[in-house]
């Protein structure tokens, strides 16, 4: 199986740094270097750099690009100015989620960059092509041509401005980007991330990404793996496709309705979401805080005190920053209200918990 795994442009540098490698989204990716806790804390208190070259870059252009992206995307791109980014989902007609993604509005009219999850690149690309009948658009999957690093943490602005030489990045606000060039090759610097901290995601061709990775590591920016990427995004209340969003979990169930604009004239899945909002959904995603240190893991049952099963854990950790056992769980809507007592079965025992807000950690974005 292993020889079917893809490698990012930084793969040999991870091995050189002694990273623990593991398959993720079809790629052989670094899970950790110095340790998940150490890397997690570096991002919360200083800065860390992640290889996110596995993410997919799909460019949409053509006379109908705006109308097409609006058709397949839940958020409202119609008033977007160049240099802005929006988060949202692509949905199936029944409201299930194809993927969650970022849409970048490029400076040229009718040009968009869609950044999608690694594991979904082929599925998304096929999905987009299937939906494009009747639209005059070009759908260009450039995922293999781009490398990407994420520099995250309170010291990330200084690192990007001085170490990488983008002083203009300081004026970027959250969810905006800079479209520029280095040695004649295109570079995108966006103030985005998946950690709950201030940070940047930088897209460029592979050789440039390798050079910047080396520069950042040499300057003492901590290399960070997917292990802490998951603990960081979890604390910040951010979903992971496959766990909190799936073909069976709609954004309404996941509590992400704010990224689905039902006042848009149309988008795929709109009617289903409108019905879910009007009629209610059977299950909702909640946060649960446990009183004990035992760790809830994906798949563990959520129960009432009498043992009745009412849900399942989707992601759980003993939170590194908050030092509490926390999880996301999909539970029957009757038990989704804040403050509801729920129990989680962990091996042979059950542990008492309470429904809390999913954003466990106070995020620090540059607004």
């Amino acid at each position, binding site marked *: 199986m292993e020889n079917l795994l893809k490698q990012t442009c930084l793969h040999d540098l991870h091995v050189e740094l002694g990273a623990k490698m593991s398959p993720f989204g079809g790629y052989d990716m670094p899970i950790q270097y110095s340790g*998940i806790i150490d890397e997690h804390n570096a991002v919360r208190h200083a800065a860390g750099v992640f290889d996110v070259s596995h993410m997919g870059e799909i460019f949409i252009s053509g006379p109908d690009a705006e109308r097409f992206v609006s058709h397949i995307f839940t958020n409202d791109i119609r008033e977007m100015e160049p240099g802005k980014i929006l988060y949202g989902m692509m949905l199936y007609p029944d409201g299930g989620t194809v993927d969650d993604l970022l849409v970048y509005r490029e400076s040229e009219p009718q040009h968009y960059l869609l950044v999608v999850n690694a594991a979904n690149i082929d599925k998304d690309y096929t999905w987009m092509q299937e939906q494009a009948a009747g639209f005059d658009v070009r759908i260009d999957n450039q995922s293999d041509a781009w490398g990407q690093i994420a520099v995250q943490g309170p010291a990330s602005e200084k690192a990007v401005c001085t170490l990488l030489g983008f002083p203009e990045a300081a004026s970027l606000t959250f969810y905006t980007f800079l479209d520029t060039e280095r040695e004649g090759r295109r570079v995108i610097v966006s103030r985005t991330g998946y950690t709950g901290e201030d940070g940047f995601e930088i897209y460029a061709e592979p050789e440039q990404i390798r050079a910047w990775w080396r520069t950042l590591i040499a300057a003492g920016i901590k290399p960070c793996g997917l292990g802490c990427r998951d603990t960081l995004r979890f604390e910040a209340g951010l979903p992971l496709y496959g766990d909190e969003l799936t073909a069976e979990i709609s954004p309404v169930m996941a509590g992400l309705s704010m990224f689905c604009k039902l006042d848009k004239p149309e988008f795929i899945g709109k009617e289903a979401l409108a019905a879910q909002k009007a009629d209610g959904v059977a299950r909702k995603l909640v946060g649960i805080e446990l009183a004990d240190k035992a760790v809830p893991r994906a798949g563990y049952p959520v129960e009432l005190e009498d043992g009745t099963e009412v849900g399942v854990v989707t992601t759980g950790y003993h939170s590194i920053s908050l030092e509490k056992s926390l999880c996301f769980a999909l539970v029957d809507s009757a038990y989704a209200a804040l403050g509801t007592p729920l129990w989680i079965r962990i091996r042979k025992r059950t542990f008492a918990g309470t429904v809390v807000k999913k954003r466990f950690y106070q995020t620090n974005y540059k607004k």
Partner: protein
Amino acid sequence: MSKIAEGLLYSESHEWVKVDGNVAIVGVSDFAQAEMGDITYVDMPDLDDELSAGDDFGALESVKTSSELIAPVSGKVIARNDELEDKPELINEDAYAAWIIKVEMSDTSELDTLLNAAAYAEVAK
């Protein structure tokens, strides 16, 4: 390369046993702690619990995974290392100093089923 302490007995599920008369002191090997990464929680049995060899008696939790602890011998739990409640990282720091439980063995012949250091070295690779 993980350390394997001489003079201890080992299970294939990576617990170590130090024999003190009819008492087995039980921990996990350096190989196991290295595989787990940062240990954040140790789920321990209660005092006086009766364990059967091969049954799980608790678990280690790291940031990323859980791993069940398997009783290498049968008997009664007569002590637990409560220091691990607040400092589970002691297992990462020195897996052979950070014992987890002490068991009053009901059948010391079960020790014969365990591995010596040399045999365990073949398992922990």
